[in-house]
């Protein structure tokens, strides 16, 4: 038994590292294998982004607002990835009968989720790059290149916290059946609203915006807009506060995800909700 399942730290790390790579590679291969997905994931979000850019254009808003929409559209791709390809992924796996295969492996559930996250980030980044390129080429949005490195730093921190939240959500979705699909839908447009994907989040008012800041993308997007467009971004918090808050959220979400995944798996086993029930 001990020969097959080594318990020393190096072996455990190697095994979990392999699981992360394996899960990430499946996602990356899948993302680039199906051409219709690539069209769906790149061209069609551009249409939605273009629609909201034209709303501002129709209202005669300054070009910076059009840039807010483009950045928001790029970040929406990550939120949708977290929601549909991470939080609800265990539900899809359950539907296809693969969840039990994950559960009988000796790797951490968080390694599987981290693999999904990394693979998903690669897939989603192609979509986001296309959205930003379309914003630059079709709508000529202003983008101060000298501020991009700082914005990218904040973006990386935002993604780390966001996928930490995704791990918590996946633990909740663990036990759900068909309602998982509908619940993911419920988290879509309302979060577009609360996170200020298409307008400065400060417009929601301090109380609502502060609650919305529990979703890391809210603060991250607010900070990125402030870095790139300064006062025009109508920031919610001083930009210097945002990285430490995101770091705290990252640590908190990873801790909670670990606890929640263990608890939900146990509960799911006891209630017999980890496989599809007939009838």
């Amino acid at each position, binding site marked *: 038994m001990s020969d097959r399942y080594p318990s020393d730290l190096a072996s455990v790390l190697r095994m979990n590292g392999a699981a992360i790579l394996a899960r990430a590679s499946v996602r990356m291969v899948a993302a680039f294998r199906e051409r219709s997905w690539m069209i769906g994931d790149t061209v069609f979000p551009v249409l939605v982004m273009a629609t909201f850019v*034209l709303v501002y254009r129709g209202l005669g808003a300054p070009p910076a607002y059009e840039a807010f929409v483009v950045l928001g559209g790029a970040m929406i791709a990550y939120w949708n990835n977290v929601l549909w390809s991470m939080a609800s992924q265990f539900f899809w796996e359950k539907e296809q009968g693969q969840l039990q295969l994950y559960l009988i492996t000796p790797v951490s559930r968080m390694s599987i989720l981290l693999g999904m996250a990394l693979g998903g980030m690669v897939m989603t980044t192609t979509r986001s790059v296309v959205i930003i390129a379309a914003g630059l080429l079709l709508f000529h949005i202003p983008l101060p290149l000298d501020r991009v490195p700082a914005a990218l730093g904040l973006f990386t921190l935002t993604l780390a916290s966001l996928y930490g939240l995704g791990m918590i959500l996946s633990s909740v979705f663990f036990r759900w059946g068909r309602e998982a699909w509908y619940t993911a839908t*419920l988290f879509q447009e309302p979060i577009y609203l609360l996170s200020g994907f298409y307008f400065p989040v400060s417009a929601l008012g301090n109380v609502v915006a502060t609650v919305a800041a529990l979703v890391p993308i809210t603060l991250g997007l607010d900070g990125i807009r402030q870095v790139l467009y300064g006062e025009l971004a109508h920031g919610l918090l001083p930009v210097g506060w945002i990285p430490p808050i995101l770091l705290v959220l990252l640590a908190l979400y990873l801790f909670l995800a670990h606890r929640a995944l263990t608890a939900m798996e146990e509960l799911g086993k006891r209630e017999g909700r980890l496989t599809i029930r007939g009838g």
Partner: protein
Amino acid sequence: MRRTWETIRTGAWIGWQVEANWADPILFLAYAIAKPLATTMILFLMVRVVSQDAANAAAFHQLFIGNTFFLYVTEVLIGISWAVFRDREDYETLKYIYTAPIRFLPYLLGRGLTKIATASLGVAVALLFGATVLGVPLRLEGWHAAQLVGATVVGLVGSAWIGVALAGISLVVARHSMNLNEGLGGLFYLLSGAVFPIDVLPAWAQKISLSLPFTYWLELLRRILTGEPYSGVLGGTSDGALWLILGVSTIATIVGGYLWFGACEWFARARGLIDWKSNY
């Protein structure tokens, strides 16, 4: 005829079970109204952050109406085509429908009725929210209400038959092509000027926009509810002309959708695609 009606009714009932029996009524209500209310608030705040003057308030009223009624297009159009994938691949019941003594098209239209019902709930709540909370003035009295119902029904029939045409495509393509149908919804949202005047589109896109029935439908609804035209491009088109264009394009959509669906259905049966399972 009686059997057709029974098939439609049964399709609607099954559709309702698929849509609604996963949750208690309160949660289902939240699900049905979350999207329209959230997008309404997004547009409201977008207008508010730009300016708060009266001109933009009027612009918001027009955006609000276009966005609210476009919910019908996305729900009905995508919902009908999605039903094919759900039945064929998730529930694996499509082959049983084809072996029963009924036709698939009326069943599909029944599934569309469920979508119309849930979309109507969202539209009604959004209109109520707009009128009472956001102060959008809507002309809903007497003759305007009758016109609104008439225009809504005509637009819904057109949307449903475009959905049938997409369902035909769904019969002959793999499940993962579903995002093409969803993308078409996004394309219509952009090109029909649901949330901006089509005047801001480039000239080539305006031509495409003017070939879509939704463009005329939304313009007509805006005029009925606010009394004001919205699009400058359609400024010279009378209300009567809008009705005529909408009516003719709806008839053309029904005929085209029926023929197209029939052709796709024949192809799917000839190629053995009715029990195709393509999800992975």
